[in-house]
């Protein structure tokens, strides 16, 4: 990396100083280690955060293991989750426990995570693009006046050591490389299902308590928290996903896909029009840019046209088979096997075939 002129580097919250180039490099190099924001939801650590610990370990090897993987937790009584984080790859856990952090608020959580980052100076910060994380990440990036790459589909470290983030645009039709050369930390948000968690290994580590002043807005209040408990199998855990598109045609027909999924011990996924039509009510069943990314052993797509908005969320699947009556459906180009037919003829036959093999 060559830097010819004086640069500004912004350390901490809103302190701006002009320094000369050697100071600048020293400042940049003083940022080390990889920090993962470990989000707690439904009384456990989010899968997404565990996946990011796996990814952080992969990056750590690319940094010749000369880095720590730090997991940062923010909440009320969250320190108890530290063993899970160690087991999935954290070297150190930093926990900010406070009754003020009982419920998520962008101002307080933003202040808390920015505080941790200011104290630990990580070079890279990974945040899951959950609903909470997608808001927390830009909040913290703005507080620290640093760069954030959104919904990364891949992270790389180039031969020259440059950290590179690959981000989607135009509904996944275009992928762009993003660099954050002159600001630290380099923050990335990543959706569930993109990176892989490690196998759990019982292991100990250092837990550090952290606290700082939480400057928030008195005029912001949480008035109600509603939790919905999952009743169906999560798509990220299913080996086989039977995905229906708008071509299914009606809610009545949709039940056949549910039968099919259960015969395959799998789960049902859908496209956005299906969710909009109300054939499926579980929002987490939607796959694609506005939904989740999946990587099952097998994806069976039925009546799905294959818009980039959807296919960018399935490309890491093992096997992809699709059924569509339109020979030119774009989904076929990204399928291992294609069936050009009316699904109403194929699905009943599939159900019979599976029953006969049970």
């Amino acid at each position: 990396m060559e830097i010819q002129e004086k640069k500004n580097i912004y350390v901490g919250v809103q302190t701006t100083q002009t320094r000369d180039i050697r100071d600048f490099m020293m400042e940049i190099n003083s940022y080390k280690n990889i920090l993962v924001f470990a989000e707690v939801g439904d009384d456990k650590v989010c899968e997404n955060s565990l996946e990011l610990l796996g990814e952080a370990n992969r990056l750590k090897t690319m940094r010749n293991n000369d880095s720590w993987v730090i997991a940062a937790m923010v909440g009320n009584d969250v320190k108890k989750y530290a063993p899970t984080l160690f087991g999935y790859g954290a070297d150190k856990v930093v926990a900010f426990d406070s009754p003020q952090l009982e419920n998520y608020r962008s101002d307080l959580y933003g202040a808390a995570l920015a505080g941790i980052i200011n104290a630990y100076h990580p070079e890279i910060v990974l945040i899951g693009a959950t609903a909470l994380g997608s808001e927390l990440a830009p909040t913290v990036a703005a507080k620290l006046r640093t760069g954030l790459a959104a919904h990364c589909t891949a992270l790389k470290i180039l031969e020259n050591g440059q950290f590179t983030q690959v981000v989607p645009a135009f509904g996944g039709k275009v992928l762009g490389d993003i660099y954050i050369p002159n600001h630290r930390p380099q923050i990335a948000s990543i959706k569930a299902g993109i990176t892989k968690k490690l196998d759990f290994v019982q292991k100990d580590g250092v837990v550090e308590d952290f606290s700082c002043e939480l400057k928030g807005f008195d005029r912001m209040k949480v008035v109600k928290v509603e939790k919905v408990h999952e009743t169906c199998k999560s798509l990220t855990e299913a080996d086989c996903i039977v995905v229906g598109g708008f071509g299914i045609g009606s809610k009545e027909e949709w039940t056949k896909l549910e039968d099919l999924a259960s015969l395959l011990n799998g789960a049902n996924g859908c496209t956005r029009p299906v969710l909009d039509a109300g054939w499926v009510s579980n929002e987490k069943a939607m796959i694609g840019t506005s939904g989740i990314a999946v990587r099952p052993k097998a994806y069976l797509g039925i009546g799905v046209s294959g818009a980039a908005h959807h296919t960018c969320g399935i490309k890491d699947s093992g096997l992809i088979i699709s059924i569509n009556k339109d020979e030119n459906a774009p989904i076929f180009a990204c399928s291992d096997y294609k069936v050009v037919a009316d699904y109403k003829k194929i699905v009943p036959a599939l159900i019979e075939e599976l029953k006969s093999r049970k």
Partner: protein
Amino acid sequence: MNIAVCVKPVPDSKYYDQIKIDPVTKTWDRSGIPTVISDLDKHALEAAISIKEKHGGKVAVFTMAPPTMKDTIMQALGMGADEAYLISDRAFAGSDTLATSNILAAAIRKAGNFDLVITGNESDDGSTAQVSAQLGEWLEMPHVMNVTKIDCDGSSIFVTAKQDNGSIDYEIGLPAVVGVTRKVNKPRFVSIMGLMKAKQKPFNVFTANDIEPDPNFVGLKGSPTQPGGIASPEMGRKSEKIDGTPEEIAKRIVDELYKAGIK
């Protein structure tokens, strides 16, 4: 109630499958794709206009874009916004979300006192979903994204924000910034009458000299994130056709699924 709505003109998302990357120049080709208001920004406009209808005041549209995007902004005025601010300068080109939100915040500050700022949760094209919260940070206002419901009593807003495992309701004393999702409302259509009236509404243009953003975070040079190469995602697979009677096809599909480890 004075409400600012951030509206981004984008290439119509219906046509994104037509976007091609030029292998030589490594830029994308969006030629022939019409420009429209980013989908969620219509929901932001609807939310603002209906709050104004209840509590009075005005709705101002803020757009950072090249001057050629005027027609799209007229659509927003046609929907019922009262005035527009087009923020346009070569110096703003290449702004990442931190710079974009810095510039939008400076324009909103310059234009007057706003009680509420509404944005889309994410745009159709860049879709980073970062500008809304960052705008809140630059304006030093409380901010909420993923909003599925918004009510206002004139001095506070009451919003429901979707979470992965449920939702959180907030009460926030104004001023505040919110980012809305498609759930929040159904945007009204733009009528011919509305478009006629739009021509009489104030249309302001801000250049770099008119506003005072933090000068360290403007344009490509002031953007912490720097773009590198672009590519199309590798998605191609062998696309082998399975033929036969429905029974034969079903048998083959099940064989392949079992081979892939499905039981």
